């Protein structure tokens, strides 16, 4: 994970330690990556593998991604978040492979002068990650079955945004009319 900083936005390059990781996510490392003497607020979001969903027990998760497209999308979202919320820095990691219950699947850190921007940025990033980054989750259940999660497109995703976004225009959830999505900045 390479943090995106206001003054370095144009120097971001994918490297071996990109936003997709196959090791445990280290929240402290994410926070440290966005540290800034100008920061008055540092928000850390850690999404963990949940053991129960609607009463059904999940025993583990597995994630896979289109590596290059997902890495690029995560970097682009970080850059967009820094611009949009005037962050000082932001960093994102998403784990691939098997994730045990309770372990982190995704981590987001955002630093800003004041808390509102940092909180909003973390929430916005999480929404975007779930909706448009080519990463997939496979749920493994207590009864031994497993299934990849490919949600039916929500009404919101089909008809544009439903108020989650702040004037972004329609967010396409990966349908055919999505050409150029990767260029949004």
């Amino acid at each position, binding site marked *: 994970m390479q943090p995106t900083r206001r003054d370095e936005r144009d120097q971001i390059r994918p490297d071996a330690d990109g936003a997709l990781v196959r090791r445990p996510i280290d929240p402290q490392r994410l926070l440290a990556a966005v540290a800034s003497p100008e920061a008055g607020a540092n928000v850390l979001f850690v999404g963990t593998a949940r053991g129960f969903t609607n009463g059904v027990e999940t025993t583990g998760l597995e*994630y896979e991604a289109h590596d290059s497209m997902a890495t690029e999308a995560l970097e682009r979202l970080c850059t967009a978040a820094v611009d949009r919320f005037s962050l000082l820095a932001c960093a994102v990691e998403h784990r691939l492979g098997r994730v045990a219950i309770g372990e982190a699947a995704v981590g987001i850190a955002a630093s800003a002068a004041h808390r509102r921007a940092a909180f909003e940025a973390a929430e916005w990033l999480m929404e975007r990650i779930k909706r448009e*980054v080519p990463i*997939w*989750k496979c749920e493994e259940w207590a009864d031994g079955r497993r299934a990849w*999660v490919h949600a039916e497109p929500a009404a919101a995703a089909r008809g544009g945004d439903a108020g989650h976004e702040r004037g972004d225009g329609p967010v396409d*959830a*990966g349908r*055919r009319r999505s050409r150029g999505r990767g260029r949004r900045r």
Partner: protein
Amino acid sequence: MHHASSSAGGQLRLALFAGLAELAGTRALDIPWAGGSVGDLRQAIAAARPAVAGLLERSAIAVGGRYADDDAIVQAGADVAILPPVSGG
């Protein structure tokens, strides 16, 4: 698949992901391809692997790492990925 059996002998290797790969039984599906649109490609894939047809309908197609409309042209040998609805986070 008349359009895909041309003597041009072109081919496409499609990268499949998650449930789509599971339904197709492979992560790398090779299909004969003489060129055509993304829409044509959807039909060719559904014909080659009927099991994926339903999920394919809801999937995006990326050519060269960029999301492509159904009317975009896909050359033989292009880098094509079929991306089912995402579920990260």
